[in-house]
């Protein structure tokens, strides 16, 4: 395979892999016929109640492990994409997911003439706390 083609393949696969392995994921879908452009201004995050006079633009979900700030930020980004200026969190669901993690371990080498570093790799289950946010993108017009 020519070097140029290999490079192009790597450049294509790298973003795909990093997206697939991302610790935070989010998605949204419009639920209103009102299609607004991306909102670049401030977004208010709300919970437990809707602001008065809010119009619903779409449904939003985000999930991730580790930082709560990162999950909320991903949620807000989806709200911006729907043109919303209020991110309404309807429910927060904690989940403990089990994932397989690869572990490499050094081990003594038997039956080898020269002492060389040997290692073994195996998969071990690991429990990862994940937070899922479900809510809506809202739009409130300035008075």
């Amino acid at each position, binding site marked *: 395979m020519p070097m140029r083609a290999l490079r192009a393949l790597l450049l294509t696969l790298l973003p795909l892999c990093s997206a697939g392995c991302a610790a935070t994921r989010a998605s949204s879908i419009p639920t209103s016929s009102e299609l607004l452009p991306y909102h670049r201004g401030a977004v208010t995050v709300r919970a437990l109640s809707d602001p008065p006079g809010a119009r619903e633009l779409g449904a939003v979900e985000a999930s991730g492990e580790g930082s709560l700030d990162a999950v*909320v930020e991903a949620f807000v980004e989806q709200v911006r994409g729907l043109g919303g200026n209020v991110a309404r969190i309807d429910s*927060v669901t904690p989940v*403990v997911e089990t994932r397989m993690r690869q572990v490499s371990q050094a081990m003594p080498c038997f039956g080898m003439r020269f002492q060389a570093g040997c290692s073994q790799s195996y998969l071990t289950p690991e429990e990862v706390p994940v937070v899922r946010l479900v809510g809506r993108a809202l739009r409130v017009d300035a008075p």
Partner: protein
Amino acid sequence: MKRSLLLLASLSLGCGTTAVQHHLLSAPGAPHARPVRTILEGDPVPSSQPVALVQATGRGLNADLPHLIEGLRAEAQHLGCDAVVQVRIARGSSAATATGFAVRWASHPGAAVQSTPAIGAPWAPPPPLPAAPEAPAPTDAPPPWSAH
């Protein structure tokens, strides 16, 4: 023998961690040491102002309800809140996590709201529910939906 027992005890004591984190939704208040109420998902929430989304994660020996609730309460106290509402819990075999919203009551002080007893406190029965309204006395008249 004694040494190995001591080692085992120290290892078991060190095999549990609780981590808490929050994401602010509004300005926090001053930290306090008042009791913080915990309201589980589905239970009615009094009128309140959300201050932060909070999460507690316990691992090892701390992957249980008391450590998670205590973690949420401590974080709410740190944020000057009166309660953690909409609390949800998920448990695995070696890790557990709980989330909720740290809130301030809309009408301060929170003395009107009975606080949840601290973990380890003796159990007390809940106050009696208000009496149900009197049902109308049965009559021989046909029910309204049977008339044409």
